[in-house]
C-alpha cells in the first residue's frame, strides 16, 4: 500500500483509567494537521500516541480504535515498519549504530529501495535546518548531540520514511528549532502529533487535546483566539534562544531589563 493513499486517520473514543467512556467526537487527522497533546504526567498522553502507533482496535488498555481512511487498516501497514504510515520519535529513540551519518541514511534509503540519488544529502540538509549545530555527512552517528540526533530522525521521517503522520513524544527537550520543524512538516503536508509540555509547541498546534486520568478530557480548537499570546510566546522563545546561543558562546549577559 502506498503511503500517499492515506487521506485521513480517525481516532474513536475508548475509556479512562476507571473505565468511564471518553466523551469526544471522533478525532480526524488529515495531511498538514498539527495537534498537541497536553496534560499532567501520568494522564495518558503517551498511551494516546501509542494507540495510534499500533492502530489500536479496541485491544489496548484504553479501548480506543484507530481507523485509516474510515476503515480498519490492512495488517500489512500496521506490521511492516517500511509500509507503516506512521513514524514515532520519542525522547528514548536512539540511533545505536556506530556508522557515519551518510552511511546510516544510505542504509535506510537502501532498505526502502528508493532510487533518489541525492536523498541522503537532502535529508542532512533538512536536518541542519532544525538544529543550530551543523551535522556533517562524515560525522559518526554516535558522536551526534541529542538535538542533532532528533533533528536527523525528524528529517529522516519526512524524506526517507515519507511517513504521512509523525508522532513526536516530548522532543522539545532536545534543543531543536520547534517552529522550523512545524513549518517544514506543514510544507511537506505531514500530519503531526506532539506530546508536549512546551507552551510554544502547544500554541502553534491547530488543535490541543487535553488528557486527564487516562482519558481525553477535552479538545480545544483556538482558531485564532490565542494569536496574541502565541506571538508573545514566540518572541519570548526567540529571546531565550538568543540568550542560549550567547551563553554557549561564552558571553556575560549584562542587559538591564527585559530585551525585546
Amino acid at each position: 500500500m502506498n503511503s500517499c493513499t492515506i487521506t485521513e486517520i480517525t481516532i474513536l473514543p475508548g475509556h479512562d483509567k476507571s473505565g468511564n467512556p471518553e466523551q469526544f467526537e471522533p478525532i480526524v487527522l488529515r495531511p498538514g494537521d498539527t495537534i498537541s497533546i497536553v496534560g499532567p504526567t501520568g494522564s495518558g498522553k503517551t498511551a494516546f500516541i501509542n494507540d495510534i502507533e499500533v492502530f489500536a482496535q479496541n485491544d489496548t488498555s484504553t479501548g480506543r480504535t484507530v481507523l485509516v481512511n474510515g476503515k480498519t487498516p490492512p495488517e500489512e501497514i500496521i506490521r511492516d515498519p517500511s509500509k507503516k504510515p506512521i513514524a514515532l520519535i520519542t525522547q528514548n529513540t536512539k540511533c545505536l549504530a556506530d556508522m557515519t551519518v551518510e552511511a546510516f541514511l544510505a542504509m535506510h534509503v537502501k532498505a526502502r529501495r528508493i532510487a533518489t540519488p541525492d536523498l541522503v544529502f537532502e535529508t542532512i540538509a533538512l536536518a541542519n535546518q532544525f538544529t543550530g549545530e551543523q551535522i556533517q555527512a562524515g560525522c559518526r552517528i554516535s558522536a551526534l548531540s541529542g538535538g542533532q540526533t532528533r533533528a536527523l530522525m525528524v528529517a529522516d521521517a519526512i524524506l526517507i520514511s515519507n511517513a504521512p503522520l509523525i508522532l513526536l513524544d516530548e522532543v522539545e527537550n532536545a534543543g531543536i528549532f520547534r517552529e522550523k520543524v512545524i513549518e517544514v512538516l506543514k510544507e511537506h503536508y505531514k500530519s503531526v502529533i506532539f506530546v508536549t509540555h512546551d507552551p510554544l509547541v502547544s500554541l502553534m498546534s491547530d488543535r490541543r487535546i487535553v488528557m486527564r486520568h487516562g482519558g481525553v478530557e477535552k479538545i480545544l480548537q483556538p482558531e485564532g483566539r490565542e494569536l496574541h499570546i502565541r506571538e508573545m510566546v514566540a518572541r519570548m522563545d526567540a529571546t531565550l534562544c538568543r540568550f542560549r546561543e550567547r551563553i554557549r558562546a561564552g558571553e556575560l549577559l549584562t542587559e538591564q531589563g527585559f530585551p525585546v
Partner: protein
Amino acid sequence: MKLIIIAGPPSAGKTAVTRQIIRTFYGTKKITFLKIDVVRAFEDEELREEFGIPARKIYSGDLCPDHTGIMVLQDAISWAESERADIFIVESAGLCLRCSPYVTQSLGVVVLSAVSGMNSPLKMGPMIALADVAVVTKTDLVSQSEKEVFREKTREVAPQIDIVETNAVQGTGLRYLMRSIEALADIMDKKTITLRGIPPLGVCTICVGKRETGWQNHFGIIRKLDGADDLYRGD
C-alpha cells in the same frame, strides 16, 4: 493443553513477553510456567507471586540448558497436565545462540531485542530459523531505520517467520502473538513430540573436561583458524 517454547538471548525480554501472555489469557485459561536456567533464576517466583500461577524452575548446572530442557520436557508436560493447565509456557535460558529448543506440537517463540544491533539476527541462525514467531522487543528505543534493517535481517534468516514488534513492557503490538496462541492446536500426543532441528554437536573434548587450548591438544571434532569450513573432522 497448548505448549509454548520461548527462547532468546539474555535480557531480550523473554519474561516481559511471558508476562504479557499471562496477562492476556489470565482468567480465561489456566497457565503454568517452567523456567530452565543454568545457575540462578527468579522468574518462577516472580510469576507465581504476581499471578498466582503454578510456576517452577530447573537448573541445568553443568549441562547445556537446552539439553536439560529436552531431557525434562516429558516430565514437565506431565506436571503441567496434572495442574490442569490450558497453556504451558517453557522459557529457556537463552545462552547459546546456536540453540534452538523448539519442538513439534508447540508454538516456538524467539524473543529478540532491537537494541542488540542490526546484525544480531544473522548471528543467531537456528534460534530464529526454526521458530514460528520472532517477537522483537524494545522497538521504541531505536530509530526507524534500524527497525527496518533489523526486520530485513530477520527475514534473511527466516523468510517465513511471523515478526511481531513490541515494547514488551507496555505490551504494544503483541496482538499478533496472542492471535497465534489462540490459533495454536493442543498437544496431540506428547510421546511423539520431537525437536524441530538437530542440536549442536554435543560432545567434544572441551565438553568432557579437557582444558588445554589449541586444536593440537584436542581430538575428535576440531577447528583450526585457517583452512576449515564450518567443521573439520580431525583424527
